[in-house]
Structure formats: structure tokens, C-alpha cells
């Protein structure tokens, strides 16, 4: 359970500075605003791609948070100390993933009502299943994103490289989350043929969690 302590440490230091939380939340709201210029926000069609819009916002906001995940440890060589500590690489990685997951989910939960107000989307009746999809999709994004955050932490082009690598690779999860969110926001339940997307999302999470935990040690040890 050491990973929970790592996660708590990350969350505590984030809540004290609110560095990435503020940045990515305001960024998310700005993108939500920008969408209103890309198409007619009052049209009926918005409901048909609402899930896609919402997840694009989350993906952009997520990249900001995930960038900081390992970069936060760079000053004062904190990362070296963490790696040298008796905590295993997998625990350290899992802790950081959980911290990013909580932060990103918080942002998503704040963004959803804002989105509902701006684009006249009713989400309250489906709040619980939506939260479940958000959690599954966000886990997929954070597990891959934290791994790439570790992969790119020493690069000068870090801020650019992370989204470049992350977005194409997390596409299956993103597609599934978009599709499921759209279904839920349209007021329907996930059933029948759409279950395949739920299975894909869960499968993606399991596969990449296992793969990341198996390979993260090789990345962290220099």
C-alpha cells in the first residue's frame, strides 16, 4: 500500500501549489468556450457528438496534468531520491497514476456541469453511469500518460512529446469513452451492441495497467 502514500504525497504537494490543477482547469474551460465558435452551440446536433467534445477537453486537460506528474520531481533531484528509496518502481508508478487520476477526475467532474450549462445538455439523470465511464476512461489515459510522463521526463521537448505519443496510443480508450459518453448524454442506457465499447474500455485498462506495471521498472532504473 506504499503507492497510496506516494499518491497522497503528490496530491498534497499539488493542493498546496495548485499548479497543474488551476492551469488545466482554466485550459479546459477555455477549450469548452472555443468549441462554441467552431459550431452552432444551440443546435440539436451537439448532443450527437457531445461525448467527443467532452473527451477532447479531458484529453487536453489531462496532458497538462500528466506532464507535471514526473516533471514535478525534477527540482532538487527528488526523482533520483524516489528511485533510490526502497519503494519499488511499480509502487511509485502506481502512486503517481492514482494522483493524476484523482486530479483529472476532479477536473472532469467540474467540467461536466459547465458543459451542461453552456451546451444545454442534460446529464443529471445519468450522473452515476457517466462517472463510471469517466473513471474507466480516465484510468486508461492516466496509466498510459504517467508511463509516457516517466519516459519523457528528461527531454527538453517534454511538453510536446507527451501528447504526441499519448493521443494516438490511447485512441481505443478514447474512442470507447467518447462513444459511451455520447450514448449516456443522449439519455440512453448502455445495452446491447454498445456493451462492446464498455468491454473494450475495461480490456484496454487491464492490458495497459499490466503492461505498464511490468515495464515501468526498466524505465525508471537508469
Amino acid at each position, binding site marked *: 500500500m506504499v503507492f497510496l502514500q506516494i499518491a497522497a504525497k503528490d496530491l498534497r504537494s499539488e493542493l498546496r501549489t495548485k499548479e497543474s490543477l488551476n492551469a488545466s482547469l482554466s485550459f479546459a474551460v477555455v477549450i469548452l468556450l472555443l468549441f462554441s465558435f467552431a459550431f452552432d452551440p444551440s443546435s440539436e446536433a451537439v448532443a450527437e457528438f457531445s461525448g467527443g467534445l467532452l473527451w477532447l477537453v479531458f484529453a487536453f486537460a489531462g496532458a497538462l496534468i500528466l506532464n507535471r506528474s514526473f516533471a514535478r520531481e525534477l527540482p532538487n533531484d527528488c526523482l533520483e531520491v524516489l528511485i533510490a528509496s526502497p519503494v519499488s518502481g511499480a509502487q511509485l508508478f502506481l502512486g503517481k497514476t492514482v494522483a493524476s487520476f484523482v486530479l483529472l477526475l476532479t477536473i472532469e467532474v467540474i467540467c461536466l456541469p459547465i458543459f451542461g450549462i453552456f451546451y444545454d445538455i442534460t446529464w443529471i439523470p445519468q450522473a452515476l453511469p457517466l462517472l463510471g465511464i469517466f473513471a474507466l476512461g480516465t484510468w486508461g489515459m492516466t496509466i*498510459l500518460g504517467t*508511463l*509516457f510522463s516517466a*519516459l*519523457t521526463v*528528461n*527531454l*527538453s*521537448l517534454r511538453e510536446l*512529446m507527451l501528447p*504526441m*505519443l499519448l493521443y*494516438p*496510443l*490511447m*485512441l*481505443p480508450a478514447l*474512442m*470507447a469513452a467518447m*462513444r459511451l459518453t455520447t450514448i449516456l448524454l443522449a439519455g440512453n442506457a448502455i445495452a446491447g451492441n454498445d456493451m*462492446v*465499447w464498455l468491454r*473494450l474500455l475495461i*480490456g*484496454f485498462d487491464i*492490458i*495497459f495497467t499490466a*503492461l505498464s506495471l511490468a*515495464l515501468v521498472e*526498466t*524505465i525508471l532504473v*537508469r
Partner: protein
Amino acid sequence: MTKNIRLVLGALVGILLLRNLYVILFNLPDEMEQGPVYRIFYYHLPAFFAAILCYITALVASSMYLIKKNLRYDAIAMSATEVGLAFAAVNLITGMIWGRISWGIWWAWDARLTWALICWLVYFGYLMLRQAIDDPTERAKNSAVLSIFAFVSVAITYKAIEWWRTQHPGPVLSIRTGKQLIDPIMENMLYMNFLALATLAVLMVIIRLNQEEMQRQIDGLRRRAHAI
């Protein structure tokens, strides 16, 4: 020794490609429905298979690097990915030319097209990451991990896009998937050209490996010169 292998392979590839080009252009009949444009298919599909072959090689070499920590495997993975990207580009571009003539549009958001593009972007990201890291062992290790992730994700994406796109069937899909190359002459030609392009891919990987080897020697010499 490797120089001789390269020369022999090069000659073989040259002869094969010329011979195939001749047969494709002059000996084979036009296709019944599409006319002469179908000939691009003899490069389109084999290039795709050559690219897949390269990606699989990259996956195996990357895994081998993580097990053995031998930089030679890293060089193989890098060369294979680079060559694979080149063949994937041939696949995409020939497909677009064919699409422009047969469908009237350069690009259709069909499942396979989308997947091929994503595949290309993912492996392009791999090369970008390599460029951004200076230390050879760090680069080898990180890119090996990325290569494994890339392959797994690309495999899942393949299925996912199919679900995604077929739920909104486009006018192009049935042409793409329902097409059968019945005539055995045409099918054999496809295999022949796959042989040619696959050999070309092997040759290119070998050349690229050789360059990488030389680069490492030059770097070593440079370091020694600096030390003096």
C-alpha cells in the same frame, strides 16, 4: 562479407522489381471493372505487408533489447521501424491515388485507412522520441518500451476502428472488403511483388543497420579524440 550480401540482395531486388514492373505493365490484362488503375494494387498491398513485417521485426527486436540489453537489437528495431514507415507511406500514398481515381476522393474515413494513418503516426512518434534522447542506452531502453506499447495499442485500435466505422457504414466499405482477386495470375503477381518489396525492405534494413554501426564507431572515435 556484409558488403557482398548487400550487393547480391541489391541485384536480386533490382532484377525482381524490373521484371515485376514489366509484367505488371505489359503482360497482365486490365481488370474488368477498374481498368488499368488496378495495377497500383500490386504495390499497395505488398507495401502494406512489408510494413507490417517491419513493425513485427521492431517489436521482436525491442523485446530482445529489453532482455539482452544489446544495442544491436535497438539498432535493428530502429532500422525496421524507419523502413516500415517508408513502406507504410507507400501504402498510404498509392491507396490515396487509387482512391482519387476509383472513388473520386483522396481520402475516405474508412476503418482501414484510419487505422493505417494512426499506425503511421504512432511509429512516427517512436522516431521523434528517439531523436529527442541523446544518451544511447537511455534512448534504446525508452524507445524499446514505446515500441512494445505501440504495437499493442495498434493491434487493439485495428479492431476498435472497425467497430467505430462500420457502425456508420460508408459507401466505400463494401468495395474495400468484399473484393476478391480471383484470377490466379493476378494473385501470383501479388505474391511476386511482395517477395520483391520484402527483399527490398530487408536490404534497406541491412543498409540502415550498417549506417548505424558506422555512426556508433564515429561517435566512439570522436569521444576518444575529445579525451585526448
